[in-house]
């Protein structure tokens, strides 16, 4: 089958729409994840969404709904566990280990097809139902609208929390809202690339963008574009090699972009001339 044939198939159209939504939301939150030092929170939420997806599968017969509900709980938990990064990270590690154990226990009580469980871990982009697509659309829409609304405050609070607070930004509250956005986005992305590979869309594109620019707008745009290339590109490549999971392509493209950005960023920084005063030591 050629690419044209694929584009006519509903399941592939679903997949493309879902991949695009996930790429835009992940690309948008990525730079904040990095500046706020929340990469481990992404990982934690993603892996915990395995547990809640299995729980959803067992009790609700809907892993996606289960994962989304679980992600809201997870966001609240991380938010309450601590504002400081070190405290937060160890708390995430602790709950993560326990959560995975619970997930495996629940999986033992699941008597459906093992494929459903497998797809939670590695993504099920090619098997998204109408209902799931609508759910994803709703989540992505909510995330995008919220991000649009709080963008400036979130940016201020992430870059410069002390002054942001002095200027009246409720830094802690906005951090909680961001955790919720992060959890929903990550859970949504887990449907595409799987819980184990979420970082390739939520972190890698933003990390690549940060190598190339320090302009906030440019970083946001690069991050989204890179995520789109990885997610949609991975899907399209998959049509040419059906026996390979699309997740493999998504993560590979994402990683390739990062490598290029690192090399390119190094070259850019070397080329940009800096005023000598700024480079010199601070001493008199």
């Amino acid at each position, binding site marked *: 089958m050629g690419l044209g044939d694929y584009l006519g198939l509903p399941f592939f159209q679903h997949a493309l729409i879902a991949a695009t939504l996930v790429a835009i939301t992940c690309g948008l939150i990525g730079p904040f994840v990095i500046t706020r030092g929340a990469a481990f929170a992404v990982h934690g939420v993603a892996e915990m969404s395995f547990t809640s997806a299995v729980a959803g599968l067992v009790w609700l017969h809907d892993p996606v709904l289960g994962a989304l509900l679980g992600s809201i709980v997870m966001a609240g938990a991380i938010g309450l566990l601590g504002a400081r990064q070190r405290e937060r990270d160890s708390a995430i590690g602790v709950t993560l280990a326990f959560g995975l154990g619970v997930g495996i226990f629940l999986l033992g009580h699941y008597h459906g097809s093992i494929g459903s469980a497998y797809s939670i871990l590695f993504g099920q982009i090619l098997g998204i139902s109408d209902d799931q697509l609508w759910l994803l659309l709703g989540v992505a829409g909510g995330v995008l609208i919220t991000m649009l609304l709080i963008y400036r*405050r979130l940016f201020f609070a992430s870059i410069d929390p002390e002054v942001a*607070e002095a200027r009246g930004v409720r830094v802690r509250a906005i951090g909680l809202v961001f955790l919720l956005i992060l959890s929903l986005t990550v859970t949504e992305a887990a449907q595409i690339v799987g819980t184990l590979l979420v970082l390739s869309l939520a972190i890698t594109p933003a990390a690549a963008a940060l190598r190339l620019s320090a302009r906030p707008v440019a970083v946001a745009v690069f991050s989204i574009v890179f995520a789109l290339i990885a997610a949609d590109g991975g899907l399209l490549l998959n049509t040419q090699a059906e026996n390979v999971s699309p997740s493999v392509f998504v993560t590979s493209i994402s990683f390739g972009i990062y490598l290029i950005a690192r090399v390119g960023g190094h070259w850019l920084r070397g080329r940009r001339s800096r005023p000598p005063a700024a480079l010199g030591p601070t001493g008199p």
Partner: protein
Amino acid sequence: MAKESGARSDTARPSSSVTTPAVRLRGAGIRFADRELWGDLDIDVVPGEFLAVLGPNGSGKTTLLKVLLGLQELSSGTAEVGGRRPHLGSHLVGYVPQQKAFDRDLPIRGRDLVRLGLDGHRWLIGLPNAAVRHRVHEAIEAVGATAYADAPIGLLSGGEQQRLRLAQALVGDPEVLLCDEPLLSLDLRRQQEAVELIDQRRRANDTAVLFVTHEINPILPFVDRVLYLVGNRWALGTLDEVLTGERLSQLFGAPIDVVRVGGRVVIAGMPDEAHGEHGAAHHHHAADDDHEPPAGRWRPWA
């Protein structure tokens, strides 16, 4: 805003000045569960005045700034900034925090940092805007940071970052500039440059300055009045009135000597608290901590 002209050598101005005081506290007090930080504080800070806020660690200097920022309610009394109750996000107040290095990888240039001071507390996305760009540009030029305003902020030196912080605090054209130990971890020359910029600004724009510091000496030539907070007592007046052995001994309840040497003030005999002159000493404050760090032992300076 009425511009005052003339020399500013007259330091303690009468509180019955015609202009609205930039900051007014009446019977102001802060009490936490078990102790009074300070109380019955009466101050009028007039536009353009440079007030140094001194005191040992934990005496509530930062809390005073928080009151004026609208982050902390008074336990008693009233506070006014520009004739109004302090409220969060007020454009009347600019704030310069302690110098704290930015991460190298932060996706932000100096220009963006300054803009945050203008509209970073608003909702939605900050769209490109010629008027905003112009104000940001002027604020950056006023602190002499134009040359490096487009470089990633994490790559700048401490002094350069602090200039941009000052531009960030001033870009909204505040009537009151609140500075919380802005000179920490800057070397002497950068300290002097930063203070001179603040001094120029308050003279040119009649901006009142409240300057919280451990180190009186870098700001000595510019200070109009001193507010000294100790325990629940305080003293307010000119340098000559407050920084005397007699007055400080009263405040601390212990014998204290104040010596003026070569245009510097040296305070000796401070009980239990490290305070006073120690050149370009570095205080390492815990990041994001509301409270000031535990007091070090008094140590003689070299």
